[in-house]
C-alpha cells in the first residue's frame, strides 16, 4: 500500500458514526475511501455545503457544485447548502468533530504551519486557520518527511496556522498524540523500527507504554 493510502486508512478509523468532518485538499480527500461500514460521516465543504459525494461522471459535471479546491463534486441526500458565514459558524463554533489537514511543519506543542514559506510560497491560509482553531479534533495527516526534509519539529520555524491546536499526527510511520508532555507515539508502522521513526523526527517522541502496531 502506498504511504498516502496507509495514512488515509488510519485517519478513517478516527471517526465515529455521525461525525462532522472537514477534509483538507490533497491526501485527506482519500479518507472517505477507507471509512468502515456502519460508520457514516458528514463531510463539510467550507465553500458552503455538507454532504460531499463522489466526483461526478464527466458528462454530469455541474460547475455550480464544486468543493473547496474548486473541483466538481456531488452532494448526497441529506446534504445542505449554505453561505460562507454559516460555513464558518460550523467551523469556528465548534460544530466540526474533526478536521484533517496536511502540514509543512508541526511541532511538539501542537503548533501547525501550513500556509506560507516567507519569500518563497505564499498561497494564503484560506479556511485553514479557522479549521485548526475551530474543530474539536485537529488531525495532521501527511507523509512523515517531505522528500527527506524533517517536518515534525521541536518548534515550527514557519509562520503558524494555529498555535497549540493539533490533536494528533498521522503519518505512514505512526500515530503521534499531542500531550502537555510532548508528542506521544501511540502506534507505529511495523515496517519501521521506533529508532528509524525517531531518526526522521526532530521532536522527541515519548513512547507510549501501550504502544501498538498501526494496523
Amino acid at each position: 500500500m502506498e504511504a498516502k493510502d496507509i495514512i488515509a486508512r488510519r485517519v478513517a478509523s478516527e471517526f465515529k458514526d455521525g461525525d462532522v468532518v472537514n477534509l483538507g485538499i490533497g491526501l485527506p480527500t482519500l479518507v472517505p475511501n477507507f471509512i468502515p461500514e456502519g460508520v457514516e460521516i458528514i463531510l463539510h465543504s467550507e465553500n458552503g455545503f455538507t454532504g460531499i459525494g463522489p466526483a461526478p461522471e464527466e458528462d454530469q459535471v455541474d460547475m455550480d457544485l464544486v468543493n473547496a479546491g474548486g473541483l466538481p463534486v456531488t452532494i448526497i441526500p441529506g446534504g445542505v447548502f449554505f453561505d460562507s458565514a454559516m460555513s464558518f459558524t460550523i467551523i469556528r463554533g465548534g460544530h466540526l468533530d474533526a478536521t484533517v489537514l496536511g502540514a509543512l511543519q508541526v511541532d511538539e506543542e501542537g503548533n501547525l504551519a501550513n500556509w506560507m514559506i516567507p519569500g518563497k510560497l505564499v498561497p494564503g491560509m484560506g479556511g485553514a486557520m479557522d479549521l485548526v482553531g475551530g474543530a474539536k479534533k485537529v488531525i495532521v495527516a501527511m507523509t512523515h518527511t517531505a522528500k527527506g526534509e524533517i517536518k515534525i519539529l521541536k518548534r515550527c520555524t514557519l509562520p503558524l496556522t494555529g498555535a497549540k491546536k493539533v490533536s494528533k499526527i498521522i503519518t505512514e510511520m505512526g500515530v503521534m498524540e499531542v500531550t502537555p508532555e510532548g508528542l506521544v507515539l501511540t502506534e507505529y508502522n511495523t515496517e519501521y523500527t521506533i529508532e528509524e521513526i525517531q531518526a526522521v523526527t526532530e521532536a522527541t517522541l515519548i513512547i507510549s507504554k501501550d504502544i501498538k502496531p498501526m494496523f
Partner: protein
Amino acid sequence: MKKVISMDEAISHIQDGMMIMIGGFLACGSPHKIIDAIIEKGVKDLTIIGNDTGFVDRGIGKLVVSGQAKKVIVSHIGTNKETGRLMNEGKLEVVLVPQGTLAEQVRAGGAGLGGVLTPIGVGTPVAEGKDHLIIDGKTYLLEKALKADVALIFGSKVDEKGNVYYHESTRNFNPLMATAAEKVIVEAEELVKVGELDPHLVMTPGLFVQYIVKP
C-alpha cells in the same frame, strides 16, 4: 423602481480607486460577465475584496492579471501565480485574511456592527498589530468590519425586484457582500418575474440590490 439596467450602465458605477467586493469561491459564483466588462472599460487602482484571486483566466484573478487591482483583501492566492508574482514585485498589495474572519468582517459591515471578535489567528502572524480582547478568560482578535463602494455579485435566479436565489455552491460570499456595499449590482444568470421565486428560497432580499444586469 426599475433595477434592470444595461451592462454599460452597470459598469459606469465602477470608478478608479474604488473598493469593490466580488462574490465567488475559486470563480464559482463570480459575476464573470461583469468582470469581463470591467476589463474592457479599464478602470484602475481597484481594491478588491473577495475570497480568493481565482485563476489567471477565470474569476477575480483576471482583474489581477489585467493590472486593474492595486490591492486585494482575500483568504487565498495560491491558485493564481500572477498574484504572487505581482506581490513579490511590489506591484500589488495583498492582505491575507482567514476565510471565516473575512466572511464575518463583510457580514459585520453589512449588519452595522463595528467588527468581529474572533479567536482565529491568535498566536499567528494574522494577529500582529491588532487589538486583543480577553473575554471570560479567552483571547479574541478585534477584526474591523469591511464595507465597499460597490459589491458585484452573481445570482442564479433574480427577480425584477432584486430578490436573489443562489444555486448550489455558488452562494458562498455573495449574500454577505450584498449587504455590505453602497451599491450592489447583481449579474443574473436567469431573470424571472416578481412572484416566481419561493419567498423562502430568496437568499438576498431585493432591498439590498440596486441594479440587475442580465448579460
